[in-house]
């Protein structure tokens, strides 16, 4: 017993000697080398396509992984290396990347990094005045599988074009021409049927045929090829693009993200550039952006506050009223918690059906009670009624949580405190105000604030019930009366074909800031609450 080496402390130091085998070390290094090779290749690809932010984070992750697996000090972190990598890539990086996007013009018109936008433009072709449109028939080489075209020029001359050369019929030993002017046989080549051609049309279209100066590629129309030329030529030195069709020179404007002609015409697609504070300026200074955003923000705060307070009040009331002594309270509480266990998406879609003003059961019942026409109350069309419905639904979703929390917290309050209060002659309400509530807030208070954060961003409720509608009138961008910030952001980015990623990210950053402020407040309050009850 005594001979056993005793470790000096309970938490072992990472530096303590570890049985390492040569094989184990070799395997670890081999794994690391393979990982690094893939990572470096990936980074190279990303950089050459202009995705430098993603390349940077992949580079950072690679460095972390290498440090963790090479340094003996970081041995414990090897256990969490996959989690660490995912956290950096999917949790940390998106926050930084959102900040970056909010300073760019990233959006439908400026989707790609500059290098890619240029290469998209460079792939565009046009038919010069001297160029001709020809009829083609596709042949495939029996050995290499490459394609060749039998082309018939409008002037009647016909020839065979491989990917590198133009050959006359005699040169390839073509057989006699059929009625369509196509050789019945070319040695070493097989003619594709129409169906085969259609099936391989993408591959064939990407190839150019014949000699460089008179190169032919397929046009959009089936059976037609033309001597197309690249339309846009990029001059890397001057950073201009020349339109070969009319020789107009478009100069890169790195402030707007477009190649622009002297007369102001922009080439589409544009490219991503940093535009500074413009996204922020837009909603801070331009009333047509600011007004709807302000209204959405106010409703967002009201919605979150009302939801939290009402569901807390209801949950607490049930917990207090039912107590622990009422017969059947356990089973009642279990039943009340069921809505909490159903996927939110499902219950929200159900609510949308139940509250449907035309056919839903709740409006139909209300209509007969209050003698109102069909369509009343307008839960979808009227801004006020939508909001009433949303609060009812959100309280329905959230209060079982507070009921559970409050029940638990109430049990933790020592009963002798109530006995003491009884002796002092405190009424039930006084006991609740002076004893129950303050003690409850110590434990539930922080949860109220985190619940505020959750409700502030409850996208599902808003989006699934009424998609933020009814729409506001006269706003620069589509906005709805019941939209909250996050559903507004969703619509700007993904809904209604807007794809305003940069602007949407700027609003997201504003939400970020509010979350940070609320969280700091939460920690302050928590400290204060704890002090008061100490």
């Amino acid at each position, binding site marked *: 017993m005594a001979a056993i080496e005793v*470790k000096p402390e*309970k*938490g072992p130091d990472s530096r303590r000697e570890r*049985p390492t085998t040569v094989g184990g070390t070799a395997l670890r290094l081999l794994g690391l080398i393979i990982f690094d090779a893939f990572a470096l290749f990936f980074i190279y*690809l*990303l950089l050459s396509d202009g995705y430098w932010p*993603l390349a940077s984070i992949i580079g950072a992750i690679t460095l972390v992984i290498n440090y963790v697996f090479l340094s003996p000090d970081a041995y*414990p972190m090897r*256990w*969490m290396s996959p989690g*660490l990598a*995912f956290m950096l*890539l*999917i*949790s940390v*990086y*998106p*926050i930084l*990347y*959102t900040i970056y996007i909010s300073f760019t013009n*990233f959006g439908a018109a400026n989707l790609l990094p500059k290098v890619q936008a240029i290469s998209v433009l460079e792939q565009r072709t046009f038919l010069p005045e001297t160029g001709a449109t020809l009829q083609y028939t596709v042949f495939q080489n029996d050995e290499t599988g490459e394609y060749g075209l039998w082309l018939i020029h409008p002037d009647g001359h016909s020839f065979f074009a491989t990917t590198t050369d133009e050959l006359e019929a005699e040169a390839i030993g073509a057989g006699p021409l059929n009625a369509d002017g196509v050789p019945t046989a070319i040695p070493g080549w097989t003619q594709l049927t129409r169906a085969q051609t259609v099936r391989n049309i993408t591959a064939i279209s990407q190839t150019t045929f014949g000699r460089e100066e008179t190169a032919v590629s397929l046009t959009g129309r089936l059976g037609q090829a033309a001597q197309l030329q690249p339309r846009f030529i990029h001059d890397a030195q001057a950073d201009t693009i020349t339109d070969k069709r009319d020789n107009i020179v478009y100069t890169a404007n790195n402030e707007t993200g477009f190649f622009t002609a002297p007369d102001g015409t922009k080439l589409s697609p544009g490219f991503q550039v940093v535009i500074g504070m413009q996204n922020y300026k837009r909603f801070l200074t331009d009333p047509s952006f600011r007004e709807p955003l302000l209204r959405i923000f106010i409703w967002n705060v009201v919605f979150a506050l009302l939801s939290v307070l009402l569901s807390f009040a209801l949950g607490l009331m*049930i917990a207090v009223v*039912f107590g622990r002594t*009422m017969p*059947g309270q356990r089973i*009642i509480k279990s*039943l*009340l*918690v*069921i*809505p909490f266990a*159903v*996927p*939110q*998406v*499902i219950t929200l*879609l*159900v*609510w949308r*059906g139940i509250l*449907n003003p035309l*056919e*839903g*059961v709740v409006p139909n019942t209300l209509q007969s009670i209050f003698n109102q026409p069909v369509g009343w109350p307008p839960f979808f069309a009227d801004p006020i009624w939508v909001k009433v419905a949303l609060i009812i639904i959100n309280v329905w979703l959230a209060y*079982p949580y507070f009921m*559970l*929390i409050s029940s*638990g*917290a109430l049990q933790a309050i020592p009963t002798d405190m109530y006995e003491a209060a009884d002796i002092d002659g405190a009424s039930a309400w006084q006991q609740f105000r002076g004893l129950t509530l303050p003690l409850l807030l110590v*434990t539930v208070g*922080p949860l109220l604030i985190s619940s505020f954060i*959750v409700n502030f*961003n409850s996208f599902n409720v808003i989006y*699934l019930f009424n998609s933020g509608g009814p729409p506001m009138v006269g706003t620069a961008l589509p906005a709805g009366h019941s939209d909250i910030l*996050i559903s507004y*952001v*969703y619509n700007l*980015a*993904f809904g209604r074909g807007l794809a305003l990623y940069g602007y949407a990210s700027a609003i997201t950053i504003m939400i*970020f800031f509010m979350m940070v402020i609320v969280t700091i407040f939460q920690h302050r309050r928590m400290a204060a609450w704890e002090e008061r009850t100490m």
Partner: protein
Amino acid sequence: MTASTETTGRGAGSSLSAWRQSKKARFRIILAFKYLIAAIVLVYSLFPILWTISASFSPSGSISGQTLIPSPPTLRNYERILDQDFWLWMRNSFIISSISALLVGLITLMSAYAFSRFRWKGRSQLLLMILLIQVFPAILAMVALFAILQQIGNYIPFLGLNTHGGLILIYMGGALGVNVWLMKGFFDSIPREIDESGKVDGASDWQIFWQLLFPLVRPIMVVSMILTFFGTYSDYLMPRVMITTASKFTLMLGLQTFIGTNYSQEWGAFAAGAVMGAIPMVTVYLLLQDYIVGGLTAGSVKG
């Protein structure tokens, strides 16, 4: 008890029995009042659910003309939703959620083991960082996540937009999350003597982790994986943003697209799908109720 006798003493001494009776009556009235409140709240909470179950058996199948007791009950709505892609969506959801839960479970477990058993420079900072990052809901990063998947998909197609792989990749972002704290707590509660005994026998860290400790934390791990599973299963926003092809829809996305604006015609079929989609989650919830409630209170107060 003492308090009540004292009050009684202060009251009219002659009508003590009458007061006792009235107290009993008052108690009854209060109790009746309590049950009234219970009834109202139960209706509020359960009506939408009962109405859905009823709709799923309703013969009319449309939203109007439904009665609370379907007469006669029919399975036609269930046949109708099963004719749709219901099983396909269910399968997609189960594949995505299972793989996510398994990977998240493993990552969490290994990280929690390291946090519990080793000390190194930067340990506490890392623990704090894990907690702080959770302040930013993933939902806020949707634009960035969308762009990341789009870029990655250019080179690794099975992790791109509109793939299950990409969706799982996103769910990995939260793997090193609050669960690590909970799991670390469970590792902390396992006596270190177990590790020491393994070390004496010459076991490596991996063997101690896998053969000695893992069997002890397995029940907790299973529960935490089930919770991750259903967190993913019921997610809506990420599939909505990332998945566009109908054949790749998750169940939630599928049901939402199915009902869309067809409430009048497809209400019954939707209700049938909703009931079937909710059953696995409600069942598990009722089985694990105590654990979940405990986790809700304990886990959140800890921060």
